[in-house]
């Protein structure tokens, strides 16, 4: 059971990593609108390094996997994304630490821990137009869908749909954190790159586990 869970977690992390690598140009283009066009490059560098070093990672459980990933991301990536994604993975890993067979609730708690860590690290709140504006509502949906008795597959699919709507909803928002905030009112003209990345990752994870 714990072993099967770890395999699932590995598939999910690999899917997230592959999503980052495959969408390098797309994510950078999104960052070009109000930023410096390197978001895709940063993510792809970090997650690419993770995939390269995959066989050398040492971990015992899901929490360990996430913490190992956090260290690779922090070391490989500079700019905002290294600390933000490193912190997210680290906090989620800590939340699941020693948990051999995390439940759906545990996963929700881990995602909440990740979001909180990111808020602290980036001094960002919900509504500041960052990836949090996709991550947090998607986590809410995941939780409510599971509470309503949905299967993990159903719950992730629902969360992905929310992530998509929320990410696209960042169009029109005023950026208050990150490079986009320098552009003031002009930041309203584009979606947030990080939020879209969260949506694509949820969608790809949903497709991957739906196929299982």
């Amino acid at each position, binding site marked *: 059971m714990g072993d099967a869970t770890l395999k699932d977690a590995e598939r999910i992390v690999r899917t997230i990593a592959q999503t980052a690598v495959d969408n390098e140009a797309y994510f950078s283009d999104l960052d070009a609108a109000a930023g*410096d066009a390197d978001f895709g*490059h940063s993510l792809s560098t970090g997650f690419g390094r993770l995939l390269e070093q995959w066989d050398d990672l040492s971990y015992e459980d899901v929490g360990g996997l996430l913490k190992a990933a956090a260290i690779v991301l*922090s070391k490989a990536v500079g*700019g905002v*994304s290294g600390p933000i994604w490193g912190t997210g993975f680290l906090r989620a890993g800590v939340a699941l630490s020693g948990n051999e067979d995390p439940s759906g609730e545990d996963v929700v708690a881990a995602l909440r821990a990740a979001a909180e860590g990111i808020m602290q690290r980036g001094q960002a709140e919900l509504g500041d137009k960052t990836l949090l504006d996709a991550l947090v509502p998607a986590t809410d949906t995941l939780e409510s869908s599971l509470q309503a008795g949905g299967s993990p597959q159903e719950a992730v699919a629902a969360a992905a749909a929310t992530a998509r709507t929320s990410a696209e909803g960042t169009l029109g928002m005023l950026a*208050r954190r990150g*490079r986009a905030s*320098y552009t003031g009112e002009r930041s309203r003209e584009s979606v947030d790159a990080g939020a879209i990345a969260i949506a694509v990752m949820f969608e790809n994870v949903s497709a991957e586990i739906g196929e299982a």
Partner: protein
Amino acid sequence: MKKFVNDPTQFVPEMLQGIMAANPGKLTYVPDYNLIMRADMPRDDKVSILQGSGSGHEPAHVMIVGKGMLDGACPGDVFAGPPSDFVIESTKLLNSEKGVLHIINNYTGDRMAFDMGRELAEAEGIRVGTIVVNDDVAVQDSTHTTGRRGVAGNFFVIKAVGAASERGADLDELVALGNRVNDVTRTMGIALTSCTPPARGTPIFEIGDDEMEVGVGIHGEPGRRRDKIKTANEIAEELVEAVVVDLPYESGDEVALMINGLGGTPISELYLVFGIAHAMLTDRGINVTRSYVGEYCTSLEMAGLSLTLCKLDDELNMLFDDPADVAMRIF
């Protein structure tokens, strides 16, 4: 892509190797952390000074390592602040009894990396001081945002603390001095073209042949507005006005005036604008007594320039007069 480059992912390390090759004996290069440091540092009788923003702004900061300026610089990839372990390890390598001073440009990525670096260095018993530079008046300062960007003005901060540290100042004095310089320094920039990050291979933004971007960021971030290209006189007037009213600089003030090229604008045009801005300041009763024209903080090959004023006093004049022996000297 109109660049001299091999594998774009090796752009920064290959540049660092070039800096090293040009300065044997003077500099040490630590490839694992993109660190260029003075070969004769650290020394326990001098505070070590470390910078480390994104690459792509050369000569800032890897080319201004040397006596009287930085003791080390550990840049990240192009336009990305360094990963935090570059900061931690570089801080350890530069550790001195008198402490290590971090000079940080006010970008979220840079700040987070240095926050983490400071925390971990202090945990190891290293004394760390921090100065955050935020001289760009193009960005509306507000408590709701990340605040102003650090741009070319960080040259003045570094020059002052670099000189003072050679004269023996301790960490707290340097932090106070650096903040004082930052407080009297203001910059605004304007771009005529976008730059092209090597890994991306295409320009960050599209801009018409007859357009300019006013208040542009040094990473190609959009500025205050897009406008039709104007004459040098009109551009100088806008930059002078934006910078002067911000502090404000007043009649009778003595200032250093810097016209900084963003990478693709020839030095002839920088001097042309310098002459115009100098006359405009003189008309306002502001006394330009120190002149800086050239490239200090660029944005790859972006055509454009920024104007910086730094208000002077006796102490700053003395420190700015002190020699600086940097990697990029061309004579």
